[in-house]
């Protein structure tokens, strides 16, 4: 590789020369090539693609359907020393979780609290979030605390499953059988030990993991090249649910991280909505909020997610759902509730306040809360802050 000047292409000079065209304001030529005419009609938002959310609503609700046992109730536990040496602390996490469970349920003992949601003999799935990599995965401090308390409540390790879309991301972030002996670590998208996504027959391993009886249909086509397909599993207008949530587990405990997504958040519903189905990239542009809300309205999630525990020991206020270190912050907090919309609404306020405080955003925008309104319309929970019963506990 040679310096650009040696190649005879002095880009600085090139830009300067390009600017000498009598232009009022001159940008580099590439600016002009990319900036094409806007196609805005009457300033109105284009009509949204149709989805099959109506199919979800046809299924009768059950005793465990969202918003669950404690609608519109959220417990927030803060701990000054939740993060030590830049790592979430196990002792603090366990204490925060205990206080949250007792406060949420009003139970006399921790065991009784957990047994309000799960019982021995059930397979319990912990839906974690390893998307941002090692720096900002669902912390092991919180996950291990949940497991320890489940065990104390009589749930054996063999009946606990840690899962997410991408099995290999779980491994990369320390969710391994070595770190979690006796607990199954699994994902919808997977590869073999040689790193191949395909079996001997040339089919994606992930295809074995999807349940074609359950799908989210949206009138947006997903088309992928050969490199992208293993991460999306299938093309077309169907997003299939993972067998992990439709067949493998009986109950789901949702454990997202306190993160922003632009001027909104990626917490309970986003972790579930985008974490449980295939073929998602087609949905981001026009149906970001709709997917977060509507996928949660389907029984495999609506009726199985019994608890949401937001790991806010560390989190981020910008750059999410990735993990840019300059935006990672110790929120030193943990949220718990059965109502994913209410928990998201409380988490939303925490993140947006931090964004405003840090100067990345001037004020709250209703657009960021839209998906929670949609979820409330689907009767998945409470989105109005004034209607939410928020209990706050300070420790440490």
């Amino acid at each position, binding site marked *: 590789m*040679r310096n650009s000047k040696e190649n005879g292409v002095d880009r600085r000079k090139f830009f300067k020369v390009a600017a000498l065209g009598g232009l009022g*304001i001159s940008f580099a030529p590439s600016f002009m090539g*990319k900036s094409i005419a806007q196609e805005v009609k009457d300033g109105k938002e284009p009509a949204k693609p149709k989805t099959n959310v109506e199919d979800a609503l046809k299924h009768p609700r059950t005793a465990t359907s969202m918003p669950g046992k404690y609608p519109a109730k959220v417990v927030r536990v803060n701990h000054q020393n939740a993060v030590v040496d830049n790592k979430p602390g196990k002792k603090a996490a366990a204490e925060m979780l205990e206080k949250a469970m007792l406060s949420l349920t009003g139970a006399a003992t921790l065991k009784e609290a957990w047994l309000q949601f799960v019982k021995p003999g059930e397979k319990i799935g912990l839906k974690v979030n390893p998307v941002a990599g090692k720096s900002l995965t669902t912390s092991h401090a919180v996950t291990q605390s949940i497991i320890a308390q489940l065990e104390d409540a009589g749930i054996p390790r063999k009946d606990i499953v840690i899962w997410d879309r991408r099995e290999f991301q779980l491994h990369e972030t320390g969710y391994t059988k070595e770190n979690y002996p006796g607990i199954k670590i699994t994902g919808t998208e997977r590869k073999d030990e040689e790193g191949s996504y395909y079996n001997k027959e040339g089919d994606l391993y992930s295809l074995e993991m999807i349940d074609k009886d359950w799908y989210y249909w949206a009138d947006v086509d997903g088309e992928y090249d050969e490199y992208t397909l293993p*991460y999306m599993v299938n093309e077309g207008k169907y997003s299939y649910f993972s067998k992990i949530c439709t067949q493998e587990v009986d109950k789901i405990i949702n454990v997202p991280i306190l993160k922003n997504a632009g001027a909104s958040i990626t917490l309970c519903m986003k972790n579930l909505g985008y974490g449980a189905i295939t073929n998602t990239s087609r949905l981001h542009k026009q149906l970001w909020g709709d997917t977060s809300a509507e996928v949660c309205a389907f029984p495999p999630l609506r009726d199985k997610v019994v608890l949401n525990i937001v790991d806010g020991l560390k989190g981020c206020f910008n750059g999410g759902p990735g993990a840019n270190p300059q935006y990672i912050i110790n929120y030193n907090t943990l949220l718990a509730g059965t109502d994913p919309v209410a928990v998201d609404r409380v988490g939303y306020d925490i993140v947006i306040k931090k964004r405003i405080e840090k100067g990345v955003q001037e004020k709250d925008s209703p657009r960021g809360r839209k998906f929670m309104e949609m979820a409330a319309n689907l009767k998945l929970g409470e989105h109005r802050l004034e209607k939410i019963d928020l209990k706050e506990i300070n420790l440490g």
Partner: protein
Amino acid sequence: MRYTFALFTLLFLLLTVAQVIAQTDLPDLDAKEKKDVKIERNEVYSGNSLWGYINGGADLYLEYGFDKMRVIDLTIEDENLKIDLYKMEDAVSAYGIFSVNRFRCNEKAKGWMHSCITGYQLQLATGPFYLSIINQSGSEKAMKASLALANKLMGNWRDDYLQFPGMPGKPFTKMHYSNAKIIQGRLGMDNGFQMWATYFEGLENYTLMVIPVKEEEARFNLGFLTEVKGDAVDILIKNIKEKTGSATSQWYFAKADKALILLESKSSIKKITGYIKAIEAASEAELQEL
């Protein structure tokens, strides 16, 4: 003789093009160079396969015009480092993604015009590349290693940074331009300059360069929106008029030859007169109050 000259010229041009194409390949580290460097991962993602690496985070990069990237996880003298080297469509895209990712930089990296050092990260944009090196310890040693890796990877692009030609002169300084953000869509706006997001609702495929000026007496945001056509300008202006709210700021605009200039001032007009004169002189257009 004439044909020989033409052939020579053609060959020279082809050679130059070939060199430029070769140059745009993703730089890599030679693992054999140092014994104390252990590379644990070295993968390349291109186009939409970025979804495989950063899932939902890919949207922002795709909006800016993502080409391909190299991910390297390595250990160097007990320091864990993560290198993300993005090759974007061009220098503007690379600067754009850099401009929305940097935040409260402690300092710049020596020799890199568009760079940002924070405790745990080194970022820089040069040519069509955006480089991020994240360390786990936040130590001086880790940053030193990061800088050495950046020089190793991007050394040949050291002098290849984007400049902003034709922009207003004094009282604008290099410092102002080094704070510039380039926005190319909704996600960039949400991540980089959210305060203007509401005004740009419904607009697509634009390139906005925005310079936030926050000085003691002069506080304003200056935007250059390129190649706006049709009724998009009218919609934008209508949005600004309708959504400014409590009017804590005053808006001005000018339709220059190739750009719409937007100025949102939070200071009184008297305090920013020098800046306005410079903008009008460079654009040969007069700013009008909205």
